[in-house]
């Protein structure tokens, strides 16, 4: 009986020892991870948060309650970074252009992978089937599935900052030379793969497959690039956002 009571009080004690500065620090770190905020902006926002908390506490809220209410009133990280990005465009655009460059690299890498998978797959398929009839559709299907699959997977992982793609992007920003070498090696590797698979397919078959694949890639790019550009350009002056 006594043991359980002691546990209860220990839990209460941990709850009330509310490390204010740590929480505020975490909140600020979360914002700082976006390129939209300058150091001065963060200082202004933190000052505001603290003023807001002080006012709430004089009204009778606990430190913890004041923190959550003040934080909520300030706005979500998404809303804030959206509006601040419009005024801090000088810092945000190089970041965006880097992302566009990375996007371009990804499209290229996805294309290469799709090409390689398609050619190898078609070659193996041909060996298995001993007939050339279905090679066209098979090749096209492999290209589409791989290309779309890689892009969708990459896009999915950008949704969270801990995803594979954002972490890779951070690494690429810090190691530009290694990134260049990496891209070159992938390109070389892909070239070798293509050469090997071409050996497994007869020339006339290979010649008919290639244009179809190019058209598929070009159609996808025709859709992807304008959509991405339009989304990036849909920016205007900042306005007061209310829920």
């Amino acid at each position, binding site marked *: 009986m006594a043991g359980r009571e002691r546990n209860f009080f220990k839990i209460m004690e941990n709850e009330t020892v509310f490390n204010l500065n740590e929480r505020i620090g975490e909140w600020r770190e979360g914002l700082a991870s976006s390129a939209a905020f300058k150091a001065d902006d963060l200082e202004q926002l933190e000052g505001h948060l603290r003023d807001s908390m002080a006012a709430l506490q004089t009204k009778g809220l606990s430190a913890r309650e004041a923190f959550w209410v003040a934080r909520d009133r300030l706005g979500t990280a998404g809303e804030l970074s959206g509006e601040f990005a419009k005024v801090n465009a000088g810092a945000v655009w190089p970041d965006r252009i880097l992302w566009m460059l990375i996007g371009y690299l990804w499209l290229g890498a996805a294309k290469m992978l799709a090409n390689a998978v398609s050619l190898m797959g078609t070659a193996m398929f041909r060996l298995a089937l001993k007939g050339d009839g279905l090679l066209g559709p098979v090749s096209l299907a492999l290209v589409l599935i791989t290309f779309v699959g890689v892009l969708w997977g990459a896009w999915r992982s950008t949704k969270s900052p801990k995803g594979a793609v954002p972490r890779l992007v951070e690494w690429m920003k810090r190691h530009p030379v290694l990134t260049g070498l990496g891209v070159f090696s992938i390109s070389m590797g892909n070239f070798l793969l293509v050469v090997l698979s071409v050996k497994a397919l007869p020339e006339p078959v290979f010649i008919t497959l290639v244009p179809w694949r190019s058209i598929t890639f070009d159609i996808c790019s025709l859709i992807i690039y304008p959509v991405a550009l339009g989304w990036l350009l849909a920016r205007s002056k900042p306005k*007061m956002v209310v829920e």
Partner: protein
Amino acid sequence: MISKELVAASTVPLVLSVLASGENYGYALIQEVRELSEGRIVWTEGMLYPVLHWMEEEGLIESEWKEAESGRRRKYYRLRREGRKALESERREWLAVNATFSKLWKTKPFLT
């Protein structure tokens, strides 16, 4: 609650008007507007700062960091001459709209 569009449209004129009576900083500005509007105009607080930055870029207001008693820094804003001109023109526009509504709704206009 006042519509999003009205809140957005009135933000700049409200800031200009409050600063007309003297320099002020972000948090106090928001409190002032909330009190004056009797709680009907409630801004998402963090959103005010990008608007203030934009107004500063447009040359309507200027800012200065000042140290508060707590040792923390606060950015104070005040109106520039272009800001006073902008305020005048906003005043004329809003009063014109107000006068029109007063005639239609047969209410007394607030003319000062």
